[in-house]
């Protein structure tokens, strides 16, 4: 009996030890290939294919550095990464976007790449794009925490038939509509059972904040290292104009308000509204889903006092705890060379950060609005909110509900300003160290 209990106890101890010691990879033995995990968030069919193809190409050329493609999803990547980082099981190479990097960088989970970047990659990507990935790291030092490779700008996708019928001037990248012209055009295209424009505002914050730069609206100000929220006349411009289209001009389709970016497309194809302001990548869905006889054009976004838009980049980063950061960097510089960036941009219908890739003929063709999309890249500036510590919490706890209520006409613009500032500053205060 006693022996049996001793055996049982021993079994439990070993079991517990086995459970506890499960984590942590071992360094590769000499002669064995280095193994890297690459978390990719590509989701459009062409883009997943392009990603996988590049990984295969790399693995064939580099038998000593083998990369495993891991599929992730934009919906929950940040939740996933928080858990994986905390558990020490994060992938080596991480695909994400620049707003998320700020948080992970200051948490100390991402590797500062500034010393590791090869010169060719560094010079191929313009400084304005590097600015979107330069953050304060865990120890308070400035660093580059990712390689930006895809950028999104806002354009207007329009129903060509309805646009031509209305007889308004067709805007070009050189001479875009002003916001007044845009609202006027939307009014002209509004008639029985048909709206001029549709704003998909399920996630209204990034979109409005990026467009607010048209009138110089930054929403944040920093004095003495203290960031606070500001909603002044500049910030109110775009908010008010969208609200006017919805409730004063009644030229915007109220049904689209609660919808996600791609949700209004079926109604768009049916001609229920004429214009859809959206990110450039949505062109892919239009091409794929539109009925054969549906004609559409890509128009540049309207301009206010300037045509500037806030830029957000998709990035590749390396985990701080990766055991093979140098090999990971080698992989990134192959994956993001100019030719490959053009492939990835084409696959995702976004703008490449690489200047050489942007000059690729495939990026400037008139087909499917690539010329307008690529031309909009020159208006991209770093979105001010990127550098705000606590922006994510401000966005989901304060700004999202407030803007949703505003666009649903439940509160006034003054209340919006008051709540964004008061409740917002409470949130930001917790992030000041």
């Amino acid at each position: 009996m006693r022996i049996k209990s001793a055996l049982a106890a021993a079994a439990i101890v070993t079991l517990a030890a086995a459970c506890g010691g499960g984590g942590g990879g071992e360094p590769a033995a000499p002669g064995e290939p280095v193994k890297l995990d690459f978390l990719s968030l590509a989701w459009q069919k062409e883009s997943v294919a392009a990603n996988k193809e590049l990984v295969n190409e790399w693995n064939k050329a580099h038998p000593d550095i083998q990369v495993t493609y891991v599929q992730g999803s934009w919906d929950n990547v940040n939740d996933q990464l928080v858990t994986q980082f905390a558990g020490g099981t994060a992938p080596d190479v991480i695909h994400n976007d620049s707003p998320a990097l700020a948080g992970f960088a200051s948490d100390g989970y991402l590797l500062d790449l500034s010393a590791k970047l090869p010169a060719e990659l560094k010079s191929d990507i313009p400084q304005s794009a590097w600015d979107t990935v330069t953050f304060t790291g865990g120890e308070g030092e400035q660093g580059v925490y990712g390689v930006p490779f895809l950028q999104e700008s806002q354009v207007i996708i329009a129903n060509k038939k309805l646009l031509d019928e209305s007889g308004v001037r067709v805007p070009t990248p050189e001479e875009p509509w002003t916001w007044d012209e845009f609202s006027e055009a939307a009014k002209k295209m509004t008639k029985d059972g048909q709206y001029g424009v549709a704003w998909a505002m399920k996630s209204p914050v990034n979109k409005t904040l990026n467009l607010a730069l048209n009138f110089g609206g930054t929403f944040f100000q920093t004095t003495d290292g203290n960031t606070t929220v500001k909603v002044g006349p500049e910030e109110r411009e775009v908010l008010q104009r969208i609200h006017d289209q919805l409730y004063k001009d009644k030229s915007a389709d109220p049904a689209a308000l609660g919808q996600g970016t791609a949700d209004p497309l079926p109604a768009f194809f049916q001609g229920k509204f004429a214009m859809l302001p959206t990110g450039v990548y949505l062109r892919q869905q239009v091409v794929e889903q539109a009925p054969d006889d549906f004609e559409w054009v890509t128009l540049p976004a309207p301009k206010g006092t300037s045509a500037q838009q806030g830029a957000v980049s998709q990035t590749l980063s390396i985990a701080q705890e990766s055991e093979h950061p140098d090999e990971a960097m080698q992989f990134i510089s192959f994956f993001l060379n100019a030719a490959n960036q053009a492939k990835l941009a084409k696959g995702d219908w976004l703008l490449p950060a690489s200047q050489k890739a942007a000059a690729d003929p495939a990026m400037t063709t008139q087909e499917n609005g690539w010329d307008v999309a690529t031309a909009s890249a020159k208006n991209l500036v770093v979105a001010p909110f990127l550098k705000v510590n606590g922006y994510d919490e401000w966005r989901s706890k304060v700004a999202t509900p407030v803007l949703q209520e505003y666009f649903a006409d439940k509160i006034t613009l003054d209340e919006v300003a008051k709540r964004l500032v008061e409740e917002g500053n409470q949130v930001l205060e917790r992030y000041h160290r």
Partner: protein
Amino acid sequence: MTATATRPAPPRAPRSKRRGASRQKREMWLLMLPAMVPVLLFSVGPLLYGIGLAFTDARNTRVHETSFVGLENFTRMLSDEQFWASFQIGAIWSVSVTVLQFLAALGLALLLNMNLRFRSVARVLAVVPWAMPPVVIGLMWKLVYHPDAGILNGLLGTDVNWLADFSLALPAIIVVGVWTGMPQTTVVLLAGLQNVPKELYEAGEVDGAGRWRRFWNITLPQLRPVIVAITSLDFVWNFNQFGLVYVLTQGGPGGRTRLPMLFAYEEAFRYRAAGYASMLGLAMAIVVLAVLGLYLWRQMREAK
């Protein structure tokens, strides 16, 4: 054993009896071990760890040094309007889902208990939602509620975005919640119904009690223990519901469906405040236990 009890006790009996008892106890522990170890390792351990975290400023970051902060998280929780808003939503959600679930399931169970044709087929069909994981249910209902392609708008001929409307989103997910939890409630109530002795009904009929009278004075009192058990379990499950709402609305629009569990999840995994989130979890566990304790205690007292 009975033999030893009747026989006059031999001198060594008390000792050997004690030894036998202790031996029996030891064997009992040994037999329980395989069940206890996983419980201790994977439930009690993390639970204690979580309670510990609730009194620290732990953050899910690499550079942060966790320190003990006492009741700071607790005071922050008390003054956190967002949390109380979400708590209120959680209360509305769990009470209404539990009550509606019970009423609907009771109706269905009574129906399935009758001598219908295709009764066995109907019983199987009633259990189908049980076989689906919450995420699948969420995705399915998302399609039902879809503003353009959804069958609900198609059937009603309306153009409503159910899950994005400020006042409709919560009722819409409550309907899904009721639907999801109905099978297990129905099955348990049906089992209860089948245990009600037939003689009681016969006696009632002889005494001239009508259908309603028989239900009220025989079925309900007989079902009482089952009803208490299943509604209290349902309440706990519903209060802790996460996957379904996470898939359907992610707490939107504007936080109108942000149940407390979602709120705590966001604190921990979006804003990395592990310590604060643990305090929220702890508070919710205590509230559930308190509500449940009160309810069970009252029911027990009335039953006596």
